[in-house]
């Protein structure tokens, strides 16, 4: 099953929510990224059939989403907002929502129990949601989204308010869902958390698609910002001199105290191929090598700001 978005636009009067989006999403975890007001939530609401597209097509598994109960049954949605009836218990909340998917009572009970257990909120299941902490509310929201074991899962800021342990287990859970062949779409602006879940991203800004694909591939395509590579080695000065001979190396900053240098290169692929050769020829021992700006934060920064 795939999600196909073709020329999708949504406007509210004169306000454009999303503008002419085109992309495909397959199984696995995909991150929807963008600053506040970028159109992430509008896009999720279009994908979950809550909004009708103004223009374009939105197809899941060869069927349009809007007003399509067959598709809606396969969707799990964990909203960003605390969409709760505070007077319900956690169990009642999950159970009543899962029944709407057409499960018989016994099956719905079993699935509610399983989802609540998965989200580790069994102890609070009979308490009113009104008395839940933010983290617990987040867990119960997740439970209602996964209880019917949907093939497609939309998670809008799923880690909001969770404690570090909860975050870690939820990240693992999301990755598991992705590995199980589900389409999992995680919308977030906490970049390092998305990075822990996936390297597949869709970057949106001002309702437009800014970038789509693998974070590292996208990073490589941003030629306006040279890639930074930090190297820790034993002969910092020598390696700096050798590297400066090449045209693609824009600058080298070295830090003698820590025995490391940071290189800015326009052609990272060539640079990475060349570096081991230089190290061998110059007898330089490289202890570690990493790219401080080859991460989601940097990609996001370069594209959005």
């Amino acid at each position: 099953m795939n999600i196909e978005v073709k020329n999708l636009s949504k406007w509210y009067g004169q306000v454009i929510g999303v503008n002419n989006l085109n992309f495909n999403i397959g199984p696995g975890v995909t991150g929807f990224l963008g600053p506040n007001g970028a159109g992430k939530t509008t896009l999720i609401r279009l994908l979950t059939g809550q909004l009708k597209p103004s223009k374009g097509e939105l197809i899941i598994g060869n069927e349009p989403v809007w007003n399509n109960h067959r598709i809606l049954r396969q969707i799990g949605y964990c909203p960003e907002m605390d969409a709760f009836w505070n007077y319900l218990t956690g169990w009642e909340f999950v159970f009543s929502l899962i029944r709407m998917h057409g499960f018989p009572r016994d099956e719905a009970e079993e699935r509610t129990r399983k989802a609540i257990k998965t989200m580790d909120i069994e102890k609070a299941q009979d308490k009113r949601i009104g008395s839940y902490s933010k983290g617990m509310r987040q867990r119960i929201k997740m439970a209602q989204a996964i209880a019917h074991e949907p093939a497609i899962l939309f998670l809008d800021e799923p880690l909001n308010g969770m404690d570090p342990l909860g975050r870690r287990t939820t990240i693992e859970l999301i990755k598991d869902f992705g590995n199980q062949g589900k389409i999992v779409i995680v919308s977030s602006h906490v970049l390092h958390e998305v990075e822990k879940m996936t390297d597949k991203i869709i970057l949106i800004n001002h309702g437009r698609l800014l970038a789509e694909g693998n974070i590292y591939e996208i990073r490589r395509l941003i030629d306006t910002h040279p890639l930074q590579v930090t190297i820790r080695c034993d002969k910092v000065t020598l390696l700096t001199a050798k590297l400066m001979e090449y045209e693609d190396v824009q600058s080298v900053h070295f830090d003698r105290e820590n025995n490391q240098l940071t290189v800015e290169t326009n052609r990272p692929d060539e640079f990475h191929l060349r570096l081991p050769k230089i190290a061998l020829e110059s007898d330089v021992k490289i202890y570690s090598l990493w790219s401080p700006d080859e991460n989601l934060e940097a990609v996001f920064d370069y594209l959005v700001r």
Partner: protein
Amino acid sequence: MPIYEESYSPWYGQLKTRPQTWWIIARTGIKLLWKKWMIVLVLVAYIPFFARAVQIYVMTRFGDKIEIAKTVKSLQINAGFFHEFLQGQAFFLLLIFIIAGAGLIANDRKFKALFIYFSRPVNFWDYIIGKFTIVGFYGALITLVPGLLLFMVRILLARDAVFFNKYFWIPFSITGYVFLVLVTMGGLILALSAASRSATSAAIFFFSLITFPNILQKILYKIHGIGLISLNANLKQVSSQMFGLEHPFHFSVWLGFVVLVGIVLLSIGILRIKVRPTEVVQ
């Protein structure tokens, strides 16, 4: 292209082809409202029923021996008796609508929960019918059920079939009247609930809409057709026709009926505008 495990367990059993989501919404709502104070209210609303049942018993068994019963119309068990009983329940009905109905949609809007429904196989009508069933259930519990029970009591206590032969149509009138009241008042309270995020505001507005025009038409009774401004007066006028009674107001029954239909259509219109999963802040 990664290879996925496909190990999640989709449901291979028989899903209902079109789940009765309205019923799930209704049942959850009914269950949640069935609390101590609601039980007390329903029990209090049954006091007139017991009084009327005693009246039926006395009038059926000893009516011919009580002189006053032959002259005082309100003591007699006829179509007017059932109509009067239902009219008397209007106060409890108002309370039920305020308590059960005012928060039904307002709370969903307050908690921003509408999209939780609409991202599932639930459409507008599933949602509205589900919510309406909640107020309809409690409304019918204190009007339709006791009304029909009173008729049964009268039939069971009868020594012959004279009453039944004469008034066999009363259960239909009771049902029709209750349906009319529930649809108009229930629709109105849902519309007001949808128009607000506060159950209290919806309740106050509903109470005002029901009582003030009613008071006004009583004050200005000399103005021809003034009753048309009051929901109560229109209901009374139409229901008097249903029970074969004299019309209490000087306007056409059909005009009254048109006003009631108008209220229902207006309520649906408000619901259509307000019950949307996503609210756009511009």
